[in-house]
């Protein structure tokens, strides 16, 4: 009797898992690096700091590719791991395209050093997700040169 119950239990589990066997969830990005060039023309008068507090350049915007299961929603989180960075500087990210089957992420949000919710893909309906980065709170006090941080996107099943 006990063995039968175990077998029934295994069959139930297998039937739940069956539709997703042979599949995985994946996330990738088309650009291994993204460059934002702050222009010196943003200072129009000697004596002033940069006259804007935020800068974004989407001439070459990265695109995320997310795929998974047709019957499960996927959540994408974002965090950063600083390489050469200034604590006064903020980097933000958002989705740039409006699409059904995906929720959240359309307004710029600050990327921190720990995972934060970015957006949800509903049942594998959207795979191609263009994004844009914005840098904020910069100043000539940062000096000149390159600052860089590694931005990590993580997809997980809901």
């Amino acid at each position, binding site marked *: 009797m006990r*063995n039968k119950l175990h077998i029934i239990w295994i069959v139930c589990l297998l039937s739940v898992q069956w539709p997703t066997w042979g599949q995985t*969830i994946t996330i990738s990005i088309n650009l291994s690096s993204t460059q*934002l060039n*702050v222009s010196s023309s943003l*200072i129009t008068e000697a004596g002033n700091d940069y006259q804007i507090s935020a800068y974004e350049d989407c001439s070459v915007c990265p695109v995320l590719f997310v795929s998974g299961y047709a019957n499960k929603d996927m959540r994408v989180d974002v965090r950063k791991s600083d390489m050469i960075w200034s604590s006064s500087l903020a980097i933000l990210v958002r989705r740039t395209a409006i699409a059904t089957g995906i929720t959240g992420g359309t307004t710029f949000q600050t990327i921190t050093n720990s995972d934060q919710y970015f957006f949800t893909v509903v049942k594998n309906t959207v795979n191609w997700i263009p994004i844009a980065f914005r840098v904020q709170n910069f100043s*000539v006090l940062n000096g000149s040169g390159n600052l860089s941080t590694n931005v990590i996107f*993580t997809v997980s099943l809901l």
Partner: protein
Amino acid sequence: MNRYNKFSCAWMLPLLIFVSQVIHAQQSCNTTVSINFPQISLCDIEPNRNSINLSLTTPVEAGLPLTSSSVNNSKWLNYTCAVAGSSTNAITVQSNSNISGLNLQVTASAYTGIGAGTNGISNGVQPISTTARSVVSGIRNCYTGNGAGNGHQLNYSLGIGNHSTLHSTSYSITIIYTMISQ
């Protein structure tokens, strides 16, 4: 197979399935975001670049020399600077021509204003000639604030250099300030 082993095997399979599902249930990718900040070297004279006039005083007694008490401190030096690493910039002053017999000098006052960062330090009195001389040095990542009252006040003075080469005429020269890498 005893009852204990049967029980273990029965639970092992669903556990493995669950673990494999968890392993497949998360994946990451990344991109390196780089922000490039340009070098900035901007300087300006405020409140405007209109000319200033300095003159000599005619002596009231025969035998006395020409004198000069003429000064002007109406101009301010503003600048914005962003440098790489520990580099510093300086601002030099020079004129497009020399004035025979006269000593034209400028002194940049200490920095004051609404700016921020590592502003420069005055190098004191500097003669103005066709040779560039540093009036402010040690400028790093900073901005002075814009307009009169921000930056370094410029104090111009005129003195007699050599009476024998003076002429009774007016001279007009252009004074050029340049921010350079030190």
